[in-house]
């Protein structure tokens, strides 16, 4: 995509080294900022930053399209990192230079915000979200009916995307996939631990409502949420749980650090590759939702997204 947009190779190089200094159209620069915040520190997103997009002529429906694209790309990127996907032979040159961002990413991620594992940020005080909503649309009504039947209420995340209702099938599928292990290789307890850890690492008040409730449902009476909020390595875990948590923790904010040794460690404690794939996807999908919720200022729901039948 880069060579198509910026035929001058020097501009491409400058973008990858320091996009703020690159001479590109203002809306493009805002997209770079949006992408960077989404990828690295979404919990620091503010309503003023979103307003800056509007001031540049980007309407709320378009902002939702950006958020959705960022969501899907987050899933792709984290899956590729976690699974050790090799570059395709046909990968265009712009794809090969992406790794140049690693040093900057690490430096900026580690110095921003609270340390990983800190309590999720406080729930937003917004009505539903920072973006406009239109709850009269037919497609929204259909998605809302699905959510009412499944959860007993309509999540604010759905309401926030009401101007882009064509995306609801993806959101529904993502939420379904997160509810319970899909493969049978990861236990419900391991799955709930991963979800809770990810919400804590992403500092997501939105995700915490569900992941905490799920953990307390799976392991009532155990202070697991609190243990995951601090340095979880100080607490006793089974060998399999510790391996799963270590892998999920690395995936959550530093998926580019995953090596073949990480899935190998899961195998050593008796988990198969399907369990690894499960962790990769749970971390990726949940992160994409939690980061989008940050970027759009989606207020935390008053109840968890747990299916009534569960």
């Amino acid at each position: 995509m880069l060579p198509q947009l910026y035929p001058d190779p020097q501009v491409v190089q400058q973008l990858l080294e320091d996009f703020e200094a690159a001479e590109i159209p203002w809306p493009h620069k805002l997209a770079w900022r949006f992408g960077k915040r989404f990828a690295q520190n979404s919990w620091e997103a503010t309503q003023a930053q979103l307003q800056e997009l509007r001031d540049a002529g980007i309407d709320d429906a378009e902002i939702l399209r950006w958020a959705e694209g960022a969501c899907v790309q987050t899933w792709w990127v984290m899956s590729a990192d976690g699974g050790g996907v090799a570059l395709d032979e046909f990968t265009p040159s712009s794809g090969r230079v992406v790794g140049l961002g690693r040093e900057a990413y690490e430096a900026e991620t580690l110095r921003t915000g609270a340390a990983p594992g800190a309590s999720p940020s406080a729930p937003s005080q917004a009505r539903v979200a920072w973006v406009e909503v239109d709850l009269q649309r037919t497609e929204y009504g259909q998605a809302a009916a699905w959510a009412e039947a499944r959860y007993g209420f309509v999540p604010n995340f759905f309401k926030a995307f009401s101007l882009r209702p064509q995306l609801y099938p993806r959101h529904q599928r993502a939420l379904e996939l997160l509810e319970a292990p899909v493969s049978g290789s990861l236990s419900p307890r391991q799955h709930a631990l991963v979800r809770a850890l990810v919400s804590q690492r992403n500092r997501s008040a939105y995700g915490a409502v569900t992941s905490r409730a799920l953990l307390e449902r799976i392991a009532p009476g155990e202070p697991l949420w609190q243990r995951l909020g601090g340095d979880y390595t100080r607490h006793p875990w089974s060998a399999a749980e510790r391996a799963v948590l270590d892998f999920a923790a690395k995936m959550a904010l530093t998926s580019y650090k995953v090596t073949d040794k990480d899935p190998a460690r899961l195998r050593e404690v008796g988990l198969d590759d399907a369990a690894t794939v499960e962790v990769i996807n749970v971390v990726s999908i949940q992160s994409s939702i939690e980061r989008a919720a940050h970027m759009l200022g989606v207020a935390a729901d008053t109840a968890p997204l747990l299916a009534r039948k569960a």
Partner: protein
Amino acid sequence: MGFVRMIEEGEATGLLAENYRLVSERYSHGLGFHLPTPELYKVSSIVPAYTHALSESQRLLTGDGQHYCESDAAVPRLFAGFCVAALSACFH
């Protein structure tokens, strides 16, 4: 090649094979030349439900492959997502 076992295009059956085919077709349509299923879509192939969801995401995001390289808007359709990838330190 990856850290986990992946099912190649020639081995895939059923829903997984169908998803591989659709993904490849959408990319090929959008880019104007034939593209085999990218490795990225194979990483979850031993749990096909995830591959299916990835395929569906690609379908919705790209309008069934109709607008991969659209650039008539102030900011191209998929650009913000691309920026996420570029700034995620992801080698792929």
